[in-house]
């Protein structure tokens, strides 16, 4: 393939290095990104909530339509038994037999209430109202939290490790990564010199029968964490 000629290459190399962002550019844009991210993070739960409400509303409408259709199919109306007493629109009164000199009945817009002696109409089952279901957390979410805790551990941000492990404990008390969480927690507690808590958490980890993790934890924590025998 044809390469650029030498003078063109030199011109290009010279020009490329002449346009660079300044540290001020870097800081200014970062601050602006942080602002936008913070704003969108604040509005995200509300947006998610509205999404859940919307989906639930659609679901309820769909469900009630379905139930209504099923109800009509399952319980066909009995016109002979119900027609004389059943609810009827005012326009249908013309069909009723009338005495020629009888005074006209008072006009009724809609006859909603069935007469007292009318047989009970079959009631359509009402759809149960359901509260919006919180989004289901999966293994990916669990792995993300534990992964973040590991990153924080690598960066020696031990307070963050503890925040993340507590979050994990709250969201996934019986998750697949409990042992990993406990290990990260013990190492963070050791680093913060909270040895009694570290010892207690290590005891929980020991119950999980993960020798490799225990070894790693013991190697990371200076001094013995093993319970005295």
């Amino acid at each position, binding site marked *: *393939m*044809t*390469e*650029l*000629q030498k003078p*063109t290459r030199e*011109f*290009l190399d*010279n*020009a*490329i*290095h*002449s*346009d*660079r*962002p300044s540290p001020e*550019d*870097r800081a*200014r*844009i*970062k601050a*602006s*990104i942080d602002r*936008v*991210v913070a704003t969108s993070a604040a509005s995200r739960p509300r947006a998610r909530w509205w999404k859940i409400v919307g989906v639930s509303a659609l679901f309820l409408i769909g469900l009630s339509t379905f139930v209504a259709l099923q109800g009509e199919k399952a319980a066909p109306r009995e016109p002979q038994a119900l027609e004389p007493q059943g609810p009827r629109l005012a326009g249908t009164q013309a069909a009723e037999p009338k005495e020629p000199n009888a005074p006209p009945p008072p006009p009724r817009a809609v006859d909603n209430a069935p007469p007292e002696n009318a047989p009970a109409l079959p009631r359509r089952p009402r759809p149960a109202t359901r509260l919006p279901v919180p989004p289901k957390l999966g*293994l*990916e979410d669990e*792995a*993300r939290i*534990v*992964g*973040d805790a*590991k*990153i924080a551990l*690598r960066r020696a941000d031990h307070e963050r490790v503890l925040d993340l492990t507590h979050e994990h404990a709250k969201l996934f008390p019986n998750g*697949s*990564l409990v042992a*990993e969480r406990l290990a990260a927690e013990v190492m963070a507690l050791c680093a913060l010199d909270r040895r009694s808590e570290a010892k207690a958490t290590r005891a929980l980890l020991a119950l999980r029968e993960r020798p490799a993790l225990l070894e790693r934890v013991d190697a990371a924590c200076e001094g013995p964490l093993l319970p005295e025998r």
Partner: protein
Amino acid sequence: MSSTVDQLVAREATRPAFDEVYEVHFDFVWCALRRLGILESSTDDAVQDVFLVVHRKLPAFEARSTLKTWLFGIVLRVARDHRRRHKRKGNKEPLTTELVDGAAGPDEHTSNNQAWRILDRLLGELDDDKREVFVLAEIEQLPVPEIAAILEINSNTAYSRVRAARQAFEQALARHHAREARTSK
């Protein structure tokens, strides 16, 4: 199950944090956007747009390509979007900065600035496809297969586009030299 979990954890643990990506790649993103024809006054907005996309999509980054290639894909889309918006607004002003004739001063900064302005104008003479491929091949020095992957074109098309872009740039530079020679007489 366990291996899937391990893979997931390993992926999460090796995923670079957003701040790291910003620190390491800020200069690259900024320069790439400038070379793709983003106006000086829009550079901040474009860089911000790129990093907001990065912030949103970084958790899903699966390292199937290098981070730089992935970033360049985002940079390209944002640059195209800015150019499209610029055209839609009916701006007559070119996206690239205009060369100020005779602006070359004695100090290094001015001459550097002038070199960049010349390059910017020459790149502005290429059409968008050639400009993108030229920036990727000659300025960012990416191999052609990677360029093909970023631009979602096949390798042969990428090779021929790179060749055409080089020729177009050489011709633009020759025209620039000819103009300079005329004005200096």
